[in-house]
């Protein structure tokens, strides 16, 4: 073994050239490290700073903007832990708290789709575990190039199998998410994974190394060379126009979900036994990140023996050990006299654990390698990182894009043409049935899944006795955001909020995964700044705080960035999941006694269109699918209307007035009706209240369709008036066709064949 680059050697050789640029640091950043330490860094310190100051770990380009989430946050009594923790924690009542977060694993998933996506799930699950919660469900938001593109056939099946492999083996139900296709993601697919966990209030854990003398224990998998530099080199730079894939191959981690399952059960038993003072998951930047963040968040000092880290490759030295992103590892702080008990719990679960250091009051993070000091730094200097206010400027094409109004596009002129457009949309890759993907995920495991895809939101029962549950939805629309990132982000927030509301749940809190191109491009930085401003303003207006999130920059190939794609996750609480609303028009609603209308009422459930429909086609699915067009303005969000609609839906669900509810989004009323018919295997007959084309395909926000139980019409109309939600009765549930009176009719068999045929035809 070659002798390490020690602090003593660094002091003795100030002029030694160091590979800071190769590790992703700028000359100025390197200079700042030298100034902080008063000498050149050792190779281990350089490795540590390079990963901690990477865009991925330090949020150096985004921090100045993200601050708005705290500054503009609405007051919420539900928030138990907010931004800055591994994940936000929200009170859902009954003594329960929920923690949830979404994170990107975009770059690794392009390089190695299966392992990249799998370890994305593993990473977010550990974030939730680190808060003290039992992970109970996952979701994923995916974007790929056109479904028919050859590279999509390489990337998509691998990503889906990776999520399936890891999540199913962990025993976590996958309850929803999104899948969309657009040429802008062809070289930069998006793989965003969300996890949600449940705990009792007093189970909350902290990521802080407090109490000098307390022991630092690394538990879980051994440390290997996989993922070295994943955060700094892979996730914090754009792919080269050519050849980038090969160059980045070695930095993707390999997942072992069974070890993660053992780690989850082991940690939960350690928490229950009160054996943990502080805990941190190991994700991006591995041991470097866990030690610096624990030390910076605690008493301030830590002494670590790097040679005590269990290795799977004995040739690794201090820099590699610090940078390794080997999966399935956690770092715990434990009182010395509890260590034997701690290790016994680990042994029970076959989880490897090693004491690698202890908490000190020196204010320094000191690491040794066989007795020699290789790291000696103030931990906050690495944990805090640089801050950049990068130039932001509206893109030069923005004006022309806004002026390219979809009103000029030729529209369907008669019933036959409207029918053809509906079928084209329902069979298009973005709106087609996603069972090819979602059937590969276990949505049932744990036995508490009440709603999962293709429902609007996922719904999980938390307490069997009371029916308390949590609802979750994620949404994002790159086309809207490309037209206007401020409005587009608010529309994504509104849609996720509405998708939670249509289950009958009350939205409570927000997480986000902000996927953008290079922050070094002022036009991208403008999009980012606008998106963050839109989200912060939207959350303030809706009264739901942002509890945490993730930023993924450098989603671009050469100079071409992806559509700005903030993915917004909204968490809600359902007071009683037995009163959940699902999207399907059901046969059982026909002739069934109305819940609120007394017994004996019979007839077809009436369909009511809620909200206001305007002619809004900018960024719409219709313009995209029928004309390949992207231009004009996105729909105008109305946050106050969203709030009223959500309250109406929660009240109507609790009163048992509705038999179905479905949010209107991509493809408008036409697609919502078709999906409700297909989901419930029941047709409907509607009469359109306005211009047929606008009524069917406009994507105005703040709308939903509901099926009102026979006999409950008067009660629902009253409730709707009380909540000041505009609405129009447009028809009734029943039959075997989707019938639009005087215009067209489509049999459910034909509708199903078009809807379900698309993805299997492409992916086998």
């Amino acid at each position, binding site marked *: 073994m070659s002798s390490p680059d020690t602090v003593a050697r660094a002091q003795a050789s100030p002029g030694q050239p160091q590979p800071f640029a190769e590790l992703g640091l700028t000359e100025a950043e390197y200079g700042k490290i030298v100034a902080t330490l008063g000498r050149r860094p050792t190779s281990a310190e350089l490795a540590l700073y390079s990963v901690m100051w990477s865009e991925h770990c330090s949020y150096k380009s985004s921090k100045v903007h993200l601050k708005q989430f705290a500054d503009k946050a609405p007051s919420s009594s539900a928030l138990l832990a907010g931004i800055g923790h591994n994940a936000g924690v929200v009170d859902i009542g009954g003594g329960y708290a929920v923690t949830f977060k979404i994170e990107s694993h975009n770059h690794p998933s392009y390089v190695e789709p299966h392992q990249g996506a799998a370890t994305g799930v593993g990473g977010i699950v550990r974030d939730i575990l680190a808060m003290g919660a039992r992970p109970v469900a996952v979701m994923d938001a995916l974007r790929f190039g056109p479904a028919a593109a050859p590279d999509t056939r390489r990337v998509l099946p691998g990503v889906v199998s990776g999520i399936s*492999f890891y999540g*199913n083996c962990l025993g976590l139900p996958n309850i929803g998410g999104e899948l969309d296709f657009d040429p802008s993601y062809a070289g930069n697919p998006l793989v965003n994974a969300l996890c949600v966990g449940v705990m009792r209030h007093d189970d909350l854990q902290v990521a802080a190394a407090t109490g000098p003398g307390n022991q630092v224990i690394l538990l879980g998998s051994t440390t290997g060379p996989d993922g070295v530099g994943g955060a700094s080199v892979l996730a914090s730079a754009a792919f080269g126009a050519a050849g980038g894939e090969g160059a980045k191959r070695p930095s993707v981690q390999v997942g072992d979900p069974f070890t993660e399952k053992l780690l989850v059960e082991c940690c939960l038993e350690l928490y229950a036994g009160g054996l943990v003072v502080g805990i941190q998951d190991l994700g991006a930047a591995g041991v470097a990140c866990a030690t610096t963040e624990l030390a910076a968040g605690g008493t301030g000092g830590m002494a670590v023996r790097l040679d005590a880290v269990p290795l799977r490759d004995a040739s690794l030295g201090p820099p590699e050990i610090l940078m390794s992103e080997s999966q399935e590892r956690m770092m715990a702080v434990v009182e010395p006299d509890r260590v034997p008990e701690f290790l016994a719990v680990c042994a029970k679960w076959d989880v490897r654990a090693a004491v690698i250091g202890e908490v000190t009051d020196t204010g320094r993070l000191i690491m040794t390698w066989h007795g020699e000091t290789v790291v000696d730094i103030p931990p906050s200097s690495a944990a805090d990182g640089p801050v950049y206010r990068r130039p932001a400027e509206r893109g030069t094409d923005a004006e022309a894009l806004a002026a390219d109004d979809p009103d000029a596009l030729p529209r369907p002129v008669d019933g036959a043409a409207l029918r053809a457009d509906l079928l084209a949309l329902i069979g298009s890759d973005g709106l087609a049935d996603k069972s090819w993907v979602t*059937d590969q995920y276990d949505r*049932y495991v744990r*036995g508490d*899944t*009440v709603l999962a895809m293709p429902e609007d939101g996922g719904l999980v029962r938390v307490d069997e006795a009371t029916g308390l549950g949590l609802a979750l939805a994620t949404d994002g629309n790159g086309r809207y955001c490309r037209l206007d990132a401020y409005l587009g982000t608010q529309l994504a927030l509104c849609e996720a909020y509405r998708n939670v509301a249509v289950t009958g749940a009350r939205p409570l809190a927000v997480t986000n995964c902000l996927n953008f191109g290079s922050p070094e491009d002022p036009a991208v930085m403008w999009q980012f700044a606008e998106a963050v401003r839109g989200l912060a303003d939207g959350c303030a207006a809706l009264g739901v705080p942002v509890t945490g999130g993730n930023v993924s920059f450098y989603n671009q190939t050469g100079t071409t960035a992806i559509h700005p794609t903030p993915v917004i996750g909204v968490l809600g609480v359902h007071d009683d999941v037995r009163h959940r609303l699902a999207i399907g028009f059901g046969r059982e609603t026909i002739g069934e006694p109305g819940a609120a209308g007394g017994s004996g009422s019979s007839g077809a459930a009436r369909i009511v269109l809620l909200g206001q429909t305007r002619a809004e086609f900018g960024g719409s699915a219709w313009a995209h699918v029928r004309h390949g067009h992207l231009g004009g303005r996105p729909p105008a969000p109305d946050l106050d209307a969203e709030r009223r609609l959500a309250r109406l839906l929660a009240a109507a669900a609790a009163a048992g007035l509705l038999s179905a509810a479905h949010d209107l989004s991509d493809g408008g009323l036409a697609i919502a009706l078709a999906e409700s018919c297909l989901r419930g295997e029941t047709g409907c007959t509607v009469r359109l209240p306005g211009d047929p084309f606008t009524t069917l395909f406009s994507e105005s926000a703040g709308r939903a369709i509901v099926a009102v139980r026979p006999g409950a019409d008067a009660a629902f109309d009253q409730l709707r008036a009380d909540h000041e939600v505009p609405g129009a009765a447009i028809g009734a549930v029943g039959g075997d066709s989707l019938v639009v009176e005087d215009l067209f009719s489509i049999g459910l068999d034909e509708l199903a064949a078009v809807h379900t045929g698309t993805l299997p035809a492409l992916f086998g």
Partner: protein
Amino acid sequence: MLWHGDRDLRGVDAAILPGGFSYGDYLRCGAIARFSPVMSELVPAARAGLPVLGICNGFQILCEAHLLPGALTRNAGLRFITRDLRLGVENAQTAWTRAYQAGQQIVVPLKSGEGAYAASPGTLAGLEASGQVVIRYASGNPNGSAAGIAGVCNAAGNVVGLMPHPEHAVDGLTGPSADGLGFFTSVVAAVVG
């Protein structure tokens, strides 16, 4: 709950080997779990008549342990499948199926990647002749199982293996039906007498 590392059945009246991913199933599903210490007690007890139900991974373990004939192989199509399926109950005489009528159709979720039942032609013929096919897929064959077999039992009928998950069909709120309850009420009746 029995612990995999204990050589002790703790006097239970019946045992269920649940689904999951034993040891990650990185090798063949169930191939390592059959060597768990608890199996050294379970195998002789099952041979002596203890009611044992294996669900999904549990079915795979029972086959690996030779308590049930045949093997589970990768799905035709090579993908994991989660789907609510219509099943036909063919043998309502086992310790786990007496609550059903022979010929009854039930809806229960299937969720597996290695669920294709396989056995030699001779074994298959024997299973059919002796009524050891307990349940069969009733609307199409989702995973390429031989003769559409979704569950089998041993000759005595006390050991049953199922690929579908009846525990996910016990309540219409969290599953497609309550049709799976019968497997559990059957064994309760069998052991209570």
